[in-house]
């Protein structure tokens, strides 16, 4: 990546957003997010019988006066979330124009900033072939952001992308935050296992499917011989006519629907974004519409 991905004006807008994490999170560190476990926040959660040794300051004396029994007040705990952002760094994200790659990195930088703003810990990874390459690990605080975010410029987009094969062997944490996968998901390779795996690990999952405008609505016509940027042996040779364009549109519908349906089935979030769209529009529009941000 060559240019500054995020400018200050954009970050100032993004700062206004609150990351909305729908599910409970459980992290080792305190933060602005409520934990599913009871903790020391001010938000009342429940009562339980007092057990000797409990903090006497949390005994509900009003309840003792009514019931003549000691009840301990429980409060929701607030933990620090670990946001893990996985960027598809395959060649298909970058080929022919940088729109998809740029958009992916900007999305990652923006999500990272928002998470840091929520006092969360952020890690950013690049998936290339069957491996996850750590770009930024355990970044906390805006100072760390400023000093580390530039590493995104060094991400190299090449090779193929096997999302499941890459993520599942890795330590993805357990119930401690949000996992974001930014990819075009245009592959026969298995990515469903990874998403299910993350969900099983009680992590919130956000899948952002990035497609270019030409991929969504191709304008090319006539006799073409397409070669796949990731694998030259994959080729497509046809006379593009109206019938094929109609079939292609159905294929796009199928590919996006497949991911959308998977996410819906496990409660994960899904966003289809056009790489040529403005990042602000993606955040202020689609993410808010989908309830990812508030």
């Amino acid at each position, binding site marked *: 990546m060559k240019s500054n991905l995020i400018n200050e004006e954009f970050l100032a807008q993004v700062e206004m957003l609150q990351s909305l994490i729908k599910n409970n999170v459980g992290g080792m560190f305190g933060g602005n997010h409520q934990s599913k476990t009871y903790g020391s926040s001010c938000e009342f959660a429940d009562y339980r019988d007092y057990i000797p040794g409990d903090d006497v300051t949390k005994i509900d004396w009003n309840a003792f006066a009514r019931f003549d029994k000691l009840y301990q007040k429980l409060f929701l705990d607030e933990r620090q979330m670990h946001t893990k952002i996985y960027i598809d760094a395959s*060649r*298909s*994200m970058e*080929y*022919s124009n940088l729109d*998809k790659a740029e958009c992916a990195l900007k999305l990652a930088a923006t999500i990272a900033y928002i998470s840091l703003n929520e006092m969360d810990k952020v890690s950013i990874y690049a998936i290339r072939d069957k491996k996850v390459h750590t770009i930024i690990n355990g970044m906390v605080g805006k100072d760390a952001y400023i000093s580390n975010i530039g590493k995104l410029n060094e991400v190299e987009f090449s090779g193929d992308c096997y999302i499941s094969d890459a993520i599942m062997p890795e330590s993805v944490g357990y119930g401690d935050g949000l996992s974001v996968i930014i990819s*075009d998901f*245009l*592959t*026969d390779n298995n990515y469903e296992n990874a998403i299910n795996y993350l969900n099983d690990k009680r992590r919130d999952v956000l899948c952002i499917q990035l497609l*270019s405008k030409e*991929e969504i609505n191709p304008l*090319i*016509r*006539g*006799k*073409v*011989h*397409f*070669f*796949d*940027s*990731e694998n*030259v042996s*994959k*080729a*497509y*040779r*046809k*006379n593009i*006519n*109206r*019938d*094929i364009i*109609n*079939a*292609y549109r*159905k*294929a*796009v519908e*199928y*590919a996006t629907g497949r991911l959308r349906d998977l996410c819906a089935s496990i409660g994960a979030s899904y966003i289809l974004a056009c790489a040529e769209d403005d990042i602000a529009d993606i955040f202020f529009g689609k993410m808010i519409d989908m309830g990812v941000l508030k």
Partner: protein
Amino acid sequence: MSFLYPLGLLGLLGVPVLIIIYIIKNKHTEQTVASTYLWTLSEKFLKRRNPISKLAGIISLILQILLVIAISLTIAHPVFTVSDSCNEYCFILDATGSMNIESENGSRLENGKKEISKIIEESGDGSLYSLIVVGNGTNIIYEKTSDKEKAIFELNEQKCAYTDQGFGDAIKEAQLFFNDNSSVLTYLVTDTEYKTHNNIEIINVAETKKNFAISDVTYTLSNGKLNVFGNAISYTSDEGLTIELYIDGEDEPSATIDTLEVKKGVKKEFELSYLTNDFNNFKVNIKNSDSLPLDNENVIYNVKSENAYEALIVSDNPFFFKTVIESVSNARVDILMPNGKDTIDVPSGYGLYILDTAAPTTLPSDGAVWFVNQTKNTQNSGFTPQSEIILEKGDTLSLTSSSSSFVKKLIRDMSGKNIYIKSYIKCGFYGNFNTLLSYKGNPVVFTGSNTHGNREVIFSLDIHKSDFAMLPDFVILIRNLLEYSFPAVIEDVFYYGGDKAQVNVIPNCESIRVTSPMNNTTYLSTNSEVAEFTLDEVGVYEITAIISGAPRTYHIYSAMPEAERSPVNTAEEISLYGEAGNDKLDGIYDKLIIFFVLLAVIFTADWMVYCYEKYQLR
């Protein structure tokens, strides 16, 4: 199959060229895309296509190849042979006078042409056609041609004659065709009904319509009265006919028979009278209309008036010549008196100059010249007066005893006796002359030609000092000499169509032009004494002879031959001899229209495909 223009097949070389261009032009555009996943996936959603639709990609190429092939074949003009589908036809078309008879559908000839055209058009391509037309003679118009258009065109060019012509020659020609190919189909298109006909199909185009005619017209002119006689006939029914007589082209009839009852097929005499001393021509016609108007009138010209001329007598005492000439001819006579002068300027423009005593300063060049009692030499006259011989007592002239038929003609009817003279002028000759009357071997009346080629008569005597002018021989001689000096250009003024008319080529006749009733103009040869031409139309022929630079016009009338007047003719037999065969000819099929239609369809289809690919696809 064969090709009329095989070189057109070279156009097929365009096919491989087209394919090469197509391959070059339609190469797949290679392009690397981010992912082929969606494109490959789209195959699952592609509707199962008709195998024929797989051709859609190359449909344009296929159409263009078909277009090139069709164009090449069109240029090469393929001809397919269709075995045993054609015949040879021989048509004999009657174009004689009776085929002019009209009906509601046109003349018989036109109907005959239509019948032949129909047969030609319905015959298979490759058939052979021969056409023999019997009109003004028998003419083979075309022989064994396979060109339908030419056959019909030439057929339609045929005109009806006004003559009577038999089919003998035509049958001889048809027999030759039949001998060559006994399967030839021979058609005789005529208005005659034949009781027997073998190997000839008769197409009778006769329709029985009203038809009458006038014939046998004669006249007498005596005592200031013209009597015209003739016959009228109705061929199809009893009729009451109105007969009219027109004198000298007047618009109103000079005499009329309002109703002449005529029985069918029976000639009925009529007579018309008109008071006149003379006439140039008269026309007798039937006023009623019928299917053949051409035989409803006769025009008779007066031979005398047709051959009329003007004479100039230069004499102080022209009495004898003037009286005799006016009595034996219808010449208009002018008199010029020299009043005793020896020489005189003679005006031009006369057919005959009679120079009595006074000599002309210049020999007239535009007419015959008679010299009478000339004592002075006239240049170019062919003779030289020498001296007057005065006889001691009156003596008789001798009539020539020449055996020449020419001379005999000039002295015919003369007795030659008792022609007394008292003097004569002895003459010398430097031209050829024939002596008619002589005195003791010295020519006194002789004829010849001058250097202008005009006929010349010399009377080397003073007729006023002779009793010659008082004798009948003088009148006879003058009559004979007038005929000699003015041979009639035309002797007959009434003919029938098909006859040969004769025109006498008189001296100094430079040209003879004949204008037919239909304004066809021909020029006759003037190299012989008599020019002939065939009258192949009905009506008035105008003959213009240029004689010594001056035109003279004569008229003759050509009437419809009687044999061609009747609307219904019957004959006994007409046949071709031999056993008819049944062999057919191989026909051809060379219609290009199918290729033109094909070209149009392919071109339209190619254009639609092009438009679809260009504009509809997106």
